[in-house]
């Protein structure tokens, strides 16, 4: 600026860039999202095609099977079973058991997940990162891995209950054990949900409350907790639905605590009573869908996570010992439990019979890896999961993209339909597939799909299993996709379009790179969930399409825990390798740009 001996300084220099013409900055709180993709314009061809594709996919994956479950349940044979829910105390008890299991698992799981997330987001403690990873471990393992290890440790002749305390207790069989195993197994996603929400809270709200004289406890009770209500709803729903639709844990750990999902399984696999199974499935769907709708209502009413652009201040750290000490005790206890349970799985895979004959052996792995059925199951499962992963990932992102950027009026409906996949228990999906795809699908007499289920179907029945994988992991892809897309300022896409790049080009060059981390997460989750799922696909396996989870299930039922543990270790290693591969792949894709 200094030229010769004279300088001119322009007005209040530093002020200009920061205010940047305040008309352009959105007033906070009023940040009603502008819809992207132009307002009032007619839907373009690509969008319409995508929308039809998504609707067709969701219909085949979820809509049709659910409808068939409904119609089968109301058939004569199905009605005979349904009727008993009004007349027989046994059936009613089963319904009550199921709902109680869902509620207890949901409440305890949500509470523990919140404790872990709160500590992770707001407290300082040693081993924080390790605790985080330990919390996520159950994502990559099938739930009855935890059940088997729980029985080994705490069962009738458990290493801890009998071996250490000399108790021969059946306490673990039934509601307590089921709650423990299910809450622990399905808690990671609830935890991630809540962690994200706590981190997204604008600290200014809590600061404002305390500056108005509210004590720490009051701030927590009246501001922090209420703002997290949608998060609690989502976490609870997840745990509730997973708990009531799980059919394998009740079979091995339920004792005489019978629930709908395992009864549906017994009806179909044991008695080959399809209508009866459908009737159980229908009853199972009622609480799941009810909780789903209540949660949607809550989330919408409370959808006020304010996006104010510039967060003020740094997130507060909780230091009051009265809060920190008990919470950290809980956190470390949880971490220790995870280490204990998974340590048991790993050690158990390398010894003859854990707790009885602790001599080292590789027999279990030999049985799993070289045995015909074991290695076949491994190859089949990996192959089908690999096919399902990209389909589910892309489909979820596509739904998210349509919901956030393209649709106006129908957005809420499409979101609802897509997320319905979370509310429909896997058991229902599996039975629905049996009913829908055991014969060729026709529409008004026109053949649409060949037979998909059963050993004689195309690809040995693998297609139906891939579809079932997709139906369960599409919603989570959709959810992370929506979250990621909402983070993107619409003006970025508008800027690209105003620079002359078409809407498709904008999607490819701007939107896609920005949601790539979310896409990567969706892929990882889809693969892990495919590899570890059982409730839906256990109905669909054939000799040509075997599943690792089913083998583990069989081993646990037969009491061959050593083999089951070896299977679990193999499965977890496969999932970890796949996650690493996806991570490296997406990282490379980014650096290429």
């Amino acid at each position: 600026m200094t030229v010769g001996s004279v300088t001119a300084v322009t007005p209040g220099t530093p002020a200009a860039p920061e205010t940047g013409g305040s008309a352009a900055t959105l007033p906070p709180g009023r940040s009603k999202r502008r819809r992207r993709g132009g307002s009032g314009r007619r839907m373009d061809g690509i969008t319409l095609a995508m929308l039809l594709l998504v609707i067709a996919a969701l219909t085949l994956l979820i809509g049709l099977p659910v409808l068939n479950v409904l119609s089968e349940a109301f058939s004569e044979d199905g009605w005979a079973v349904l009727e008993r829910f009004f007349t027989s105390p046994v059936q009613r008890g089963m319904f009550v058991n199921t709902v109680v299991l869902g509620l207890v698992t949901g409440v305890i799981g949500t509470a523990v997940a919140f404790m872990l997330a709160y500590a992770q987001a707001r407290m300082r403690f040693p081993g924080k990162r390790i605790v985080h990873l330990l919390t996520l471990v159950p994502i990559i393992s099938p739930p009855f891995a935890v059940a088997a290890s729980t029985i080994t440790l705490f069962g009738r002749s458990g290493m801890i209950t009998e071996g250490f305390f000399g108790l021969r207790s059946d306490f673990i069989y039934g509601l307590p054990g089921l709650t423990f195993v299910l809450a622990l197994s399905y808690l990671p996603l609830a935890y991630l949900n809540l962690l994200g929400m706590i981190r997204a809270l604008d600290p200014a709200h809590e600061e404002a409350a305390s500056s108005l004289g509210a004590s720490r406890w009051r701030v927590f009770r009246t501001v922090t907790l209420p703002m997290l209500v949608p998060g609690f709803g989502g976490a609870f729903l997840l745990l509730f639905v997973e708990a009531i639709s799980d059919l394998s844990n009740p079979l091995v750990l339920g004792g005489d605590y019978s629930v709908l999902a395992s009864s549906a399984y017994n009806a179909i696999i044991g008695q080959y009573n399809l209508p009866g199974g459908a009737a159980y499935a229908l009853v199972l769907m009622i609480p799941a869908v009810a909780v789903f709708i209540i949660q949607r209502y809550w989330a919408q009413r409370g959808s006020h996570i304010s996006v104010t652009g510039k967060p003020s201040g740094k997130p507060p750290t909780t230091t009051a010992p009265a809060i920190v000490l008990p919470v950290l005790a809980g956190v470390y206890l949880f971490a220790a439990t995870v280490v204990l349970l998974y340590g048991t799985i790993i050690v158990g895979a390398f010894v003859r019979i854990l707790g009885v004959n602790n001599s080292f052996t590789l027999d279990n792995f030999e049985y799993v890896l070289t045995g015909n059925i074991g290695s076949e199951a491994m190859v089949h499962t990996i192959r089908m999961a690999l096919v399902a992963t990209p389909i589910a990932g892309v489909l979820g992102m596509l739904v998210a993209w349509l919901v956030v950027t393209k649709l106006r009026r129908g957005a809420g409906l499409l979101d609802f339909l897509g997320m319905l996949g979370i509310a429909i228990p896997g058991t229902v999906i599996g039975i629905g597939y049996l009913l829908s795809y055991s014969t060729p699908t026709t529409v008004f007499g026109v053949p649409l799909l060949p037979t998909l289920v059963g050993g004689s179907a195309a690809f040995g029945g693998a297609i139906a299993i891939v579809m079932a994988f997709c139906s369960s992991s599409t919603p989570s892809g959709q959810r992370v996709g929506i979250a990621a897309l909402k983070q993107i300022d619409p003006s970025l896409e508008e800027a690209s379009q105003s620079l002359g790049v078409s809407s498709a080009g904008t999607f490819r060059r701007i939107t896609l790179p920005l949601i790539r981390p979310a896409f990567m997460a969706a892929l990882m989750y889809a693969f892990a969930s495919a590899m570890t799922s059982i409730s839906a696909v256990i109905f669909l396996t054939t000799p040509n399409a075997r599943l690792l989870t089913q083998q583990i299930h069989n081993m646990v039922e037969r009491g061959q825990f050593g083999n089951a543990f070896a299977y679990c270790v193999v499965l977890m290693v496969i999932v970890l390798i796949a996650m690493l591969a996806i991570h490296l792949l997406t990282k490379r894709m980014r650096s290429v740009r």
Partner: protein
Amino acid sequence: MSTETATPAMHQTRSASGRLELTDLVKIYEPGSDVRAVDGVSLQIEPGEFVTLLGPSGCGKTTILRTVAGFETPTSGSLTLDGKNLLRQSPSRRPVSMVFQSYALFPHMTVRENVGYGLKAAGIRTRQVNERVDEALESMSLSPYADRAPAQLSGGQQQRVALARAMVTRPEVMLFDEPLSNLDAALREHMRLEIRRLQRQLGTTALYVTHDQAEAMAMSDRVVVMNSGRIEQVGPPREIYRRPASRFVAGFVGRANFFDIQRRSADETSAEVELWGRVYTVPAHPRARETEDLTLLVRPESLKLTPESGESGPATAVVTAAVFMGDRVEYELTSGESRLLATVMDPAEDQIIPEGSQVRLDLIPERAWLLPA
């Protein structure tokens, strides 16, 4: 705020209390680093006074504000209110309330619940809370919106709710963190006056943070200009603008022309300088006597501009830009090697000098200011 200060009886004696004193405040965010966000700031604010912290982003002004509120703990230094140590009190115990840049309205509460939040936290009875909330909403013309959610209000209305919420508890000190930066220009000017009016009415001490010099000038009893963690100057707006202590202050507050210059002679309050071959007697900073090399500050409106034909003024310049602003015309000039800014207030239509014209320049010496380089 504490319960006892919330009672009306205490409120009557307000004007005597609310003296805020900051002494040698230092804030280092990263232990071991020598980056000082706040670097030895001392400041005394009188009861009922409106003081603004003005400076570029990162100058430490927000850190000071948040320290007073209790959201930051200073590395060293003291902070007292009416002689009582504030640093020992948690944010919720301090009789201080803050208005946030993002307003931080609780999205899950209605307007009424938002405004009543602090009163309820102080344990005041519901009936009394309602009365005081109604009164506050009334005075802010917010009564019709009492039962709406914050998201249903416009930006200006949200701003008023935030103000009402902070004021209704009658704090000793109000803190403002750039509260107007999200409003459009017209509303912002209106709200400046509104905030000032309310603050005077309540007699509350106010500490206000902004990077907008016009806002600081319009609202403050005193302005504190800050730069990289230190105070550059404290004074009433007029003094900051007319008698800046440094080139930084002069450049940050308003527009300025600087001339590197040598003085001929100087006494306590004025000096003789030579510019454009002419000798001017100008007011001078006391420290102008200490050195020979000085800077002469001439605000654009203190430059006299006449068309070439007028033949008055010792220097010549060429108009490189003329911007008509309605109440004034802003000129950019080139004189020799240097660029200058000049402002002519309320010009007649035919007196606007077109770009490219030659003009003659002079300055109004009593409006200039000589400061140490």
